[in-house]
Structure formats: structure tokens, C-alpha cells
């Protein structure tokens, strides 16, 4: 009883100390969009560091895929694509980074935060809907950028590849890819109830992209009919932009086509998020 009273008394005392600034509506400097997104991103980075599976998937899976892809692609005839095995592998790797670090990881994260009611709680605060989704995606975006830099550095420093011919295209590709895949990840969570089923729900898009968007098998080396169909896949223009950005040699119409296709897919993905994204678990 005595402890109960002292605890209550202490609570009151603390509350009284802080009385002055409460409920008065005194204007204080507001939070900023950047500040809010960074606060969310920082928390997500901490969480990523504590989730061994996610950490393994984002840090090592792309490297593992590069190795697996290289041995697979050796059997392909790349002569029509005009690329060496090394060039096809290193540029296709951008796609793997986007799939594992952005798409798979964010699908798990968004689903987990929704099911834990974190998203619902965050929506009562000052951060807007877009800020919540974007802030949550920040660690994935940072890791993606770092891995892309690593790929280019490794390629030029150790594999005797050229420096990126058109860095601006490379950057455009990675940025569009980030936004598109983050949005696709958010949209895909509509099909998942747990972060484990989210991984499963992400399989179709991931598999189709890996096989058909030029990461493993360049479109230029495909039969024409197949290549034309694969042009329509969401990740094809992104991989195309990044590949052209590094290796060069794309003409203006090709580049504009990639940019337009990537923008259309990004817009569709954003629309899907606005239409289908759920902020609370289904009851």
C-alpha cells in the first residue's frame, strides 16, 4: 500500500513539474517532413539490424544470386547481346539488389508493421501516409544505393570494366526502381497476412522478373517474340536503364522508351497502393 501511494505521489510530482507547458498551445517549432521520415527510418534500421533473416536476405542474397547467375549464364549464348558474361552479370545484378533489398524486404516489413498495428498507431501522429511508407523504406533505399555503388566499384576496380558511361541514367534507373519496387511491395501486402506469407506472395513477381527482365538472360539474347513480351515486365525498363547507364551504347529513343515504361509501371504501382493498401489487419 505504502509503495502504491509513493508511486502515485511521484507520478503527480513529475506531472506537476512539467505543468507549465502543457495544454497551452504554445507554438513550438514543428516537425519537418525530413525529420519525421528520418525518425522512422532510423527505427527501421535498428529493427533490420535485429532481424537476422532480413539482414541475411538484404546483405548476402544479392551476392549469392550474382554467383549463381554467373554460373547459369555461362551456358547461354550471349553473342547477340554484344555483352560479355562479366558485363551481363554485373549489370543484371542491379535487378537482384532491387528485388531482395527493396521488394522482398519491404513486403515483409510493411506486412509486419501492419499486423503489429504499428501502421495504425503511426497514422494517429503527425506523419502523413506517404511519409510513413517512405520513412519505413529508407534503410532499404540506403542499402540498395550502397550495393549499387559497390557493384560499380568492384566492376571497375577489379573486373576491368569501364566506368559508368552515363551515370545519370544509372541513377535514374536505381531511383525509379526504388520507388516502383517499394510501391509494388506495399501493394503486394494486400495478399499477405504475415511477413512469412508475404515472402511467398512476392514469389511470382520476383521469379518472373529474374527470368524475364534481363537480369539473368539479356533480352537482346532472347528470341524476338520472347524479348518483345519481356519488354512489358515492370523491371525490364529499370534494368535496361541501369545497364545502359553503365555500359553505354543506348540511343535516345531506346532510353526514352525505358524511362516512359518505368514511369508507367511506377504510376500503376502507386495507384495500386492507394487503392488496395490496408493500414490495419483484416479482422
Amino acid at each position, binding site marked *: 500500500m505504502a509503495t*502504491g501511494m509513493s*508511486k*502515485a505521489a*511521484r*507520478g*503527480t510530482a*513529475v*506531472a*506537476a513539474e*512539467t*505543468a507549465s*507547458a*502543457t*495544454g*497551452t*498551445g*504554445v507554438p*513550438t*517549432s*514543428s*516537425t519537418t517532413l525530413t*525529420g*519525421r521520415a*528520418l*525518425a*522512422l527510418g*532510423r*527505427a527501421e534500421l*535498428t*529493427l533490420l539490424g*535485429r*532481424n537476422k533473416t532480413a539482414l541475411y536476405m538484404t546483405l548476402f542474397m544479392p551476392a549469392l544470386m550474382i554467383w549463381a547467375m554467373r554460373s547459369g549464364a555461362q551456358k547461354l549464348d550471349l553473342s547477340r547481346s554484344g555483352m560479355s558474361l562479366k558485363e551481363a552479370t554485373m549489370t543484371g545484378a542491379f535487378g537482384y539488389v532491387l528485388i531482395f533489398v527493396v521488394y522482398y524486404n519491404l513486403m515483409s516489413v510493411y506486412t*509486419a*508493421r501492419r499486423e*503489429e*498495428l*504499428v501502421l*495504425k*498507431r*503511426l*497514422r*494517429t*501522429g*503527425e*506523419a*502523413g501516409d506517404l511519409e510513413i511508407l517512405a520513412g519505413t523504406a529508407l534503410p532499404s533505399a540506403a542499402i540498395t544505393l550502397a550495393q549499387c555503388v559497390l557493384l560499380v566499384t568492384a566492376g571497375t576496380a577489379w573486373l576491368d570494366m569501364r566506368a559508368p558511361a552515363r551515370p545519370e541514367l544509372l541513377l535514374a534507373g536505381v531511383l525509379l526502381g526504388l520507388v516502383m519496387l517499394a510501391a509494388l511491395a506495399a501493394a503486394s501486402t494486400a495478399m499477405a497476412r504475415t511477413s512469412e506469407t508475404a515472402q511467398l506472395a512476392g514469389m511470382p513477381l520476383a521469379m518472373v522478373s529474374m527470368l524475364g527482365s534481363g537480369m539473368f538472360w539479356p533480352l537482346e539474347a532472347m528470341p524476338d517474340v520472347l524479348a518483345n513480351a519481356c519488354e512489358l515486365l515492370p523491371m525490364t525498363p529499370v534494368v535496361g536503364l541501369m545497364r545502359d547507364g553503365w555500359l553505354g551504347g543506348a540511343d535516345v529513343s531506346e532510353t526514352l522508351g525505358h524511362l516512359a515504361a518505368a514511369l508507367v509501371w511506377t504510376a500503376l504501382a502507386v495507384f495500386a497502393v492507394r487503392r488496395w493498401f490496408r493500414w490495419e489487419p483484416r479482422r
Partner: protein
Amino acid sequence: MDFGDGVIEVSELRRRYGRPGDDKGFEAVRGVSFTVRRGELFALLGTNGAGKTSTVELLEGLARPTGGRVRVLGHDPHEERRLVRPRIGVMLQEGGFPSDLTVAETVTMWAGCTTGARPTDEALGLVGLGGRANVRIKQLSGGERRRLDLALALLGRPEVLFLDEPTTGLDPEARHATWELVRTLREEGTTVLLTTHYLEEAEALADRLAIMREGRIVTSGTPADVIGSHPARIRFAMPDGWFVGDLPPLAELGVLRHEEAGGRVELQTSELQRTLTGLLLWAREKELELEGLDARTASLEEAFLAIAGATEAAAPLAAPAGRSE
């Protein structure tokens, strides 16, 4: 902008779940109106499913009402949430935090999204979680999570505080500490809207309250008004050989209703003292002993059961001590 004293103004509010025109849809809020004045503590009472949370979520701006109008601090909380959110604090009935973050990390994250946030130590101290700062969320008890949720609602020193069942899952000691904290905030001028199904909580804290049933407000007023509108009761056992008909004329004693079963008599009156005096004088005159005499004014619980339980007689009503962590 002048919105008088009404910090929260709600008129003819409606909320329907499901698509418009969908017959299977459910209307959870059916034309609710009330005003909460600055500095007031207003409690929404009701059994589970009465529409309390559905109403509060509209006030918090989490959803757009199907009909009617809400103003919080003079603004539409859904359409103008950027203006409203920095000035309000929200504690959901069920909100979540990432289970692998520590308590302090959660507060830091929330502070980054809160204008004028208190320091972490201060926020945790308010709710008695100071010693748990480095514990992961998943290791907290249900009651500790509720207290953390409250700390975050208070983080920005809000002008208006929405508390949806703030003490559910708390042990009695933590509940009373929370009441103290809410009283202190109210004394400092914070306007509080609270939902609860603990009548004791509403009676202890609320300046005014409204009782909801099936999506509507069925009664509202100060706790004294609500209780006062319900009759007091006198119960006793009729001595052997005596009958209700032997009492003085009941209307003259101010009795509104009476019941008799198995020799036990219950009189209902809105003038307890007059009725009781008449009864006792009669008993002295007749030299009778009224066994098991019991006279009491209505409690909020009786008023609540009479009002909220009118169509759901056996509505479950948790006693405050009945639930703990």
C-alpha cells in the same frame, strides 16, 4: 477562428462500415452529437459494440465520417489533419509498436514525429516506465504497453487528448496512478475525451459523460445528473403478518414504484429522505423491526445498466478489479 468553448464539436455524426448501398454494411455510429468544452473531461460510456471506438476514430481523423460533422479545435480532423495532429494526443484502444524496439527507442522514434516532444526520460517518468527504458517492447506486459501508449499520447503536451479505454489491462495500482495523471493533465487545462467501460473510472474522472447504445447517445450530462435521473431504492423484509397494504399510502411517502417478492419489499423513490422518514416513523409507531433495511441512492452502475442495458439485459460489464495484467 472562433469556435466558442467547443474544443470538440460533433453533430449528427454517422459511420457506416462496408461499401455504400451494401446491405451487409453495418452502421456503427448513428447520428451522434455532443460538444466538449475547453479543459473539460468528457467520458463516452457504453457496452462493447456500442460505437465508442468507431466514434473516437472519427474524432481522431483516422477515418472520414459517412455523415455529419466533426470539428476538433475548429478544424476537420480528417481533411485538415496537418493542422490538428500537432495539437492532439491519441491513445488507441489497440495500437502497436515494433516488438524488437526498446521502450526508449520507440519514444525516440515517436518524438521525431511529434512537435514539441518532451524528453524521453520525462515522458516515461510520467507513466512510471522510467526503469524499463531499455526493455524490448515484446518483453513488456500488457499493462506496461498501455502505459507506453499513454506516454506517447502525452509526448507533445497536447491540448486535446483522446484516450480509448486507457486503463484496460492495468492492475488497480497502475489504474489509480493513471487516474492521478489524467486529473493532473486536466487541471493543467488539457481537454480530455475518454472512453471506458469502467463506470468507476467515469465517475472518478469525468466532468460530463454520455452513454452510448447501438450507435446512439442515449443519455448525457454530469455524473450527478445521470445518477440523479434514476430513483433511489429502499429494501427491507416485511415483518410476519404485515403487508404492503399496511404501510401508509405510498404516494404520500413519495414512492414511485414498489415491488414485493417473498416477503422482501423494494420501494423506488426520487425523494429518499422523505420516503425513508415516513417508513421509519411508521415502523416506530407500530413497534416493528425492519429486517435487512437498506437504503441507497442510485449508483452510476445502476443508471448505466438501466440505460445501456435496456435492450441487452445481460450486457457484460467488467468490474474494475476484475481485470488485471
